[in-house]
């Protein structure tokens, strides 16, 4: 085998050999993020469309008409909560290569170290649920004016951008 190797410097060869050994020892291809879930992405897209429709409808409403919107709020909050649970149930990879690099699961390490590869989706959707719940409750008790709707919509858009960007990036 050495007959086929052109000697270009010990450092380059050592680095290459190290990389090959690590790749072989690690089982080669690695997974550092959860798998893409099309049903989750489709669910988020549908829920997002419903949310934007709700924001559009409340902009021209008053507290007195809350009863007509209550079911819409509850369905939307329930939908996002269901998607949160679906994301939470998705397996998180624990690749062997991380153990070689010293950052993998280890019974001597504190539990928070295992969260290195946890997907952010469940916590983002928790924030979305909290935002929509507060918006519903505020609509019910005092009504929503243009300024309040803007605040809730800003908040919602930041969170939905986070979750859609991440989930779509998992398609690789």
């Amino acid at each position, binding site marked *: 085998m050495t007959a086929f190797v052109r000697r270009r410097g010990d450092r380059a060869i050592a680095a290459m050999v190290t990389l090959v050994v690590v790749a072989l020892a690690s089982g080669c*291809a*690695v997974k550092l993020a959860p798998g893409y879930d099309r049903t989750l992405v489709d669910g988020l897209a549908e829920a997002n469309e419903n949310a934007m429709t709700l924001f559009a409808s409340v902009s021209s409403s008053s507290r007195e008409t809350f009863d007509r919107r209550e079911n819409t709020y509850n369905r939307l909050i329930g939908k996002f909560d269901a998607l949160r649970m679906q994301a939470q149930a998705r397996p998180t990879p624990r690749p062997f290569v991380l153990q070689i690099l010293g950052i993998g699961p280890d019974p001597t390490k504190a539990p928070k170290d295992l969260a290195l590869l946890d997907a952010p989706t469940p916590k*983002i959707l928790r*924030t979305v649920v909290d935002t929509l719940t*507060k918006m519903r409750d505020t609509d019910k008790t005092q009504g929503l004016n243009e300024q309040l709707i803007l605040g809730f919509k*800003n908040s919602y858009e*930041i*969170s939905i951008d986070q979750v859609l960007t991440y989930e779509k*990036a998992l398609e690789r």
Partner: protein
Amino acid sequence: MAHPFDIDELVQSLKTAASDVVQKDVTTLRGFSERQLQGMAKQAAWIAEATAKAEIDANLRDFFLNNLEDMARNFATTLRGLLAVTIEKVWNALVTTLWKAIEKAAGVALPVPI
């Protein structure tokens, strides 16, 4: 048939494989970060203005402040998640390139890395 192992050629292939992934993902990450930072800055400004004009009471102000803190934390963990995806793609691209180089040099077909 075996071929001489050209380290310079392999290093160049590895650089290309890695940079192809990184350049594409950096564009996505940059756009995402820009949108998020603008959005959070806009929300912070809204909270300040709404509080100053008494358009929101203390209860709502505290809710939006905690909400903004949660979103900032979620932004950081999302960025971490996106970086993990990029690292995964780079790693797997490098392994594939190495495998092909070894196959070419050894002149044999190797099992595909799992």
